[in-house]
């Protein structure tokens, strides 16, 4: 038995106070200054520069692999020469194979379609602690990573592996500098003490601590307060399931567990074996050179090898041969014994051999079922192995899946050896490494196989992207007088007309009925002339089901059409949860709730509007009143849009003047808000501008001369066109204010909009207190949009400011012409009452989603001010020639 003075990782805890001699401090500062200078110079290197250095380093490491292995064995007295040489080769050749084509300088990855570029920034100075178990391989690995990423490293090797590590650093350094690396890029502490480590770990010029070793080293690194990669101990469970290829499994486990005498922390520690194959597996182990211990031998082994106080393996056993360990504890084994196998009956401190054993001693556990096996594996995993490595041998994918779900391990190795498998690149396609991240379970910052990307600060250069916009309109829009005749071309077996009592009395239903194909079975459902209630909608759905309709004709204003939209939704998709579908959202494309696509019925929705304002015949919105809960539910989805819109002015000829005014201003508000919305686009602008032009020209005429067919027709078109604009660009703060005010004081939606409109134009045209995030717009443009509208209306004005003022005045004049009250006060609402309502008004307006597309983000205080402006009202009546001319 060969012994060493210090074989296990010392528990390194930073001293409470650092006490270094001035000379020692100067020495350490010198190391830091040298590394800092090298790292600074390194930033000038290109990818080609570093790649030119890395390759000869790798070749040097390969050439010196055996030499360094021999040095490591001589110094540490741990492990196996051949295996250490192999590890040195993996650390160079395999790592090189992984990194050689990787970009680690400048732009390392580009995502042009997302406008993203990742740019590498070196860390600078890395303080690296290396272990006794894989001393030279770890140094080779870290040197290659550091050069590839343009970092300087100060190494602090384990004291019992200092000479071999120092030699590995020397070989790497000389090769690197010979090929152009900056002087001082690698240094190695002359001797090791905890004070030096603590000083360097806390040094301001050290960018990262990379600690590979035992729990003490890792804890010290993380305790330093510096960014750290601390990766350490494990306790690898293995599940050998009955469907596995047993011959392969047994050879793999022996290969892995005896590799470098079990010093790799990913090596197998406890094999949990299904009852059915347990005896056979043990026989196979024995046939291939393992000694299976009896109970007495197992007890002896556990008692001798494991420190009863700490529960850790005695340092004397780390990395020793199986025969040497047997001799140490007094077991009689064959001279060619490779592995000692100790059956255990449980996991935990009372079963000492269930702990990590970095030597060729393997515990085995007999499990009566898959459940028991998985539980035992979980127990081993939680007994010091969290986040590290777990192994499963099975041909059953379900077992492999279950195992991977319950194990907390960064590396779950399937049907291959744990230690060599965990390195990556040999038995699988994982990233080659000599540092296994154990995630939070192991107290580590990463669960990855540590690689070059952990040695980089990766900067994301994010270019401004433009959100994809859309422009959606109903499939068919029929307009102009007698457009209703187009119903004849819409085949239907069973049609229901949803309408309200007044329209039925006016004879509108008969007109519609007359234009339906003769073979169509027609039903009529009359609903109250008010915002639809849940109860009304559900009664309507019953009727749709009763008549098995394939066409729904909504004949009415916004309320009727909204009701029909929701009836159609519930008829086609009865499982649709209206409450859930009404959930708030910011971006239609990113909303959490999706509208149902599965449909058990299908019906065409034809909307015939009988007012010229809401434009509900083309919008994707529907408002529902839930009286039981005392709230409104707003549904928004393009699937709600009617399939066919009929914009026939014959249905609006009899609209009273007040309704003409209110709905007309509603239409104007839609168009003005869509024009300045943050979602406005050239597509919506064309509609919004045209609607505004039509309203200013024809609304006063329709108001003054209700029988004017052209004016009625144009206003009906304007309402539909404005609705197309706001269906795609949304509305703004005017609607948020009007919703709150209208609901509180029972004022119609159009009139409430009208009272706010001039104030909102002035508000949006001024410099915002808070800008609304709007990636699709370049700068604040609302005032310019208003100026463009003023130009379109021929209002004159030399500057943007002047044009905006003229638009406000023209809007006020239009409201005056329509006899719309000049202020909220004029409605008979007292100042005290309004003041009392203000907290609620402000809260409700702020909760309203409408303003989220407004160009200017309103503060609550600004909403309050807008309400008060509307209360005080617009200025004295004015007239301008331009306005008079237009309305003449």
């Amino acid at each position: 038995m060969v012994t060493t003075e210090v074989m296990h990782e010392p528990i390194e805890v930073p001293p409470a106070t650092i006490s270094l001699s001035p000379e020692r401090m100067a020495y350490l500062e010198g190391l830091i200054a040298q590394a800092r200078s090298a790292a600074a110079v390194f930033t000038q290197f290109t990818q080609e520069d570093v790649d030119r250095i890395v390759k000869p380093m790798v070749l040097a490491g390969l050439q010196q692999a055996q030499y360094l292995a021999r040095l490591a064995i001589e110094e540490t007295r741990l492990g196996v020469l051949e295996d250490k040489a192999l590890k040195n080769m993996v650390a160079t050749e395999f790592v090189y194979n992984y990194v050689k084509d990787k970009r680690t300088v400048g732009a390392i990855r580009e995502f042009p379609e997302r406008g993203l570029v990742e740019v590498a920034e070196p860390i600078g100075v890395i303080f690296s602690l290396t272990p006794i178990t894989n001393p030279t391989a770890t140094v080779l690995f870290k040197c290659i990573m550091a050069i590839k990423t343009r970092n300087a490293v100060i190494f602090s090797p384990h004291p019992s592996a200092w000479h071999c590590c120092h030699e590995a650093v020397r070989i790497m350094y000389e090769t690197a500098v010979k090929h152009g690396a900056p002087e001082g890029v690698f240094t190695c502490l002359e001797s090791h003490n905890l004070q030096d480590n603590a000083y360097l770990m806390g040094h301001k010029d050290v960018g990262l601590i990379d600690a590979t070793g035992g729990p003490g080293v890792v804890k010290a690194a993380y305790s330093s307060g510096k960014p750290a990669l601390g990766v350490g101990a494990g306790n690898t469970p293995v599940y050998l399931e009955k469907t596995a290829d047993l011959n392969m499994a047994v050879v793999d486990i022996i290969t892995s567990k005896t590799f470098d005498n079990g010093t790799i922390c990913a090596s197998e520690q406890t094999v949990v074996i299904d009852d059915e194959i347990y005896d056979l597996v043990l026989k196979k182990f024995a046939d291939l050179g393992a000694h299976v211990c009896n109970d007495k031998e197992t007890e002896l082994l556990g008692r001798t090898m494991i420190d009863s106080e700490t529960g850790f393996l005695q340092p004397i056993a780390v990395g020793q041969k199986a025969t040497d360990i047997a001799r140490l504890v007094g077991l009689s084994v064959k001279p060619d014994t490779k592995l000692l196998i100790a059956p255990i009956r449980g996991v935990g401190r009372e079963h000492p051999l269930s702990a990590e054993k970095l030597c060729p001693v393997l515990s085995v556990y007999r499990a009566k079922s898959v459940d028991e096996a998985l539980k035992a594996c979980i127990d081993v995993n939680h007994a010091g192995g969290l986040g590290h490595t777990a192994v499963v041998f099975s041909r059953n994918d379900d077992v492999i899946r279950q195992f991977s779900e319950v194990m907390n391990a960064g590396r779950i190795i399937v049907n291959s050896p744990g230690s060599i498998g965990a390195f990556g690149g040999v038995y699988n396609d994982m990233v080659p490494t000599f540092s296994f991240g154990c995630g939070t379970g192991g107290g580590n910052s990463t669960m990855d196989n540590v690689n070059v990307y952990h040695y980089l600060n990766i900067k994301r250069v994010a270019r401004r992207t433009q959100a994809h916009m859309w422009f959606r309109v109903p499939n068919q829009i029929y307009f102009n007088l007698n457009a209703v005749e187009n119903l004849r071309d819409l085949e239907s077996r069973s049609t229901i007309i949803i309408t309200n009592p007044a329209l039925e009395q006016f004879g509108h239903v008969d007109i519609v009925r007359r234009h339906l194909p003769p073979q169509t079975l027609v039903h009529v459902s009359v609903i109250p002339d008010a915002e639809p209630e849940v109860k009304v909608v559900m009664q309507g759905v019953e009727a749709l089901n009763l008549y098995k309709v394939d066409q729904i004709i909504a004949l009415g204003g916004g309320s009727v059409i909204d009701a029909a939209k929701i009836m159609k939704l519930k008829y086609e998709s009865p499982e649709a949860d209206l409450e859930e579908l009404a959930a708030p959202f910011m971006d239609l494309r990113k909303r959490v709730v999706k509208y149902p696509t599965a449909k058990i019925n299908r019906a065409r929705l034809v909307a015939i509007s009988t007012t010229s304002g809401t434009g509900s015949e083309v919008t994707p919105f529907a408002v529902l009143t839930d009286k039981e809960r005392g709230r409104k539910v707003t549904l928004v989805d393009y699937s709600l849009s009617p399939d066919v819109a009929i914009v026939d002015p014959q249905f609006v000829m009899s609209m009273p003047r007040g309704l003409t005014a209110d709905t007309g201003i509603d239409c104007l508000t839609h168009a003005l808000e869509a024009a300045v919305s943050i979602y406005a686009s050239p597509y919506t602008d064309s509609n919004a501008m045209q609607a505004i032009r039509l309203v200013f020209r024809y609304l006063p005429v329709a108001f003054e001369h209700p029988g004017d067919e052209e004016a009625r027709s144009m206003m009906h078109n304007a309402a539909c066109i404005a609705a197309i604009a706001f269906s795609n660009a949304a509305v703004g703060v005017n609607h948020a204010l009007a919703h709150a005010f209208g609901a509180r004081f029972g004022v119609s939606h159009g009139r409430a909009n009208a009272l706010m409109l001039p104030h909102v134009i002035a508000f949006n045209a001024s410099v915002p207190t808070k800008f609304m995030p709007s990636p699709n717009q370049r700068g604040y443009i609302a005032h310019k949009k208003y100026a463009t509208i003023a130009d379109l209306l021929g209002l004159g004005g030399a500057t943007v400011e002047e044009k905006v003022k003229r638009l406000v005045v023209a809007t006020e004049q239009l409201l005056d012409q329509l006899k719309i009250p000049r202020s909220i006060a004029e409605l008979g609402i007292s100042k005290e009452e309004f003041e009392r309502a203000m907290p609620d008004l402000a809260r409700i307006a702020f909760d309203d989603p409408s303003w989220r597309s407004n160009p200017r983000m309103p503060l609550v205080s600004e909403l309050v001010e807008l309400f008060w402006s509307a209360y005080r009202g617009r200025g004295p009546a004015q007239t301008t020639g331009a306005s008079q001319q237009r309305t003449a």
Partner: protein
Amino acid sequence: MRDGVRMTTIPEWFKVDGERIVQSLHEADEKFARAPGEMVLDFSSVCRVDPGALRALEEFASKADASAIKIGLRGVNIRVYKVLKLARLASRFSFTNCDAESAAVIEGSSHAEPSTR
């Protein structure tokens, strides 16, 4: 100086050879005696610095400090400037005009300053 009026001084100029930075700085040392309290090192032909150059610059800065001479670096390219910043040397110098002019000098489209004047 006369009654609080400072006399205008012309700083000593020295062009640093980008291929021989360390030697150039040693040569610049010799100009200290003539320097009127300020010295400008023209870095416009320096594309890259190595650790030796950084050491020489640090020594140069220390000597300048000891002689109460302010050192300005002219035409330092942005990569070299970052190196000086990372090596904690930038604060020991003042910097004048950088990239545009230095790039022009490097490309030969403009005459370099004479090494001394």
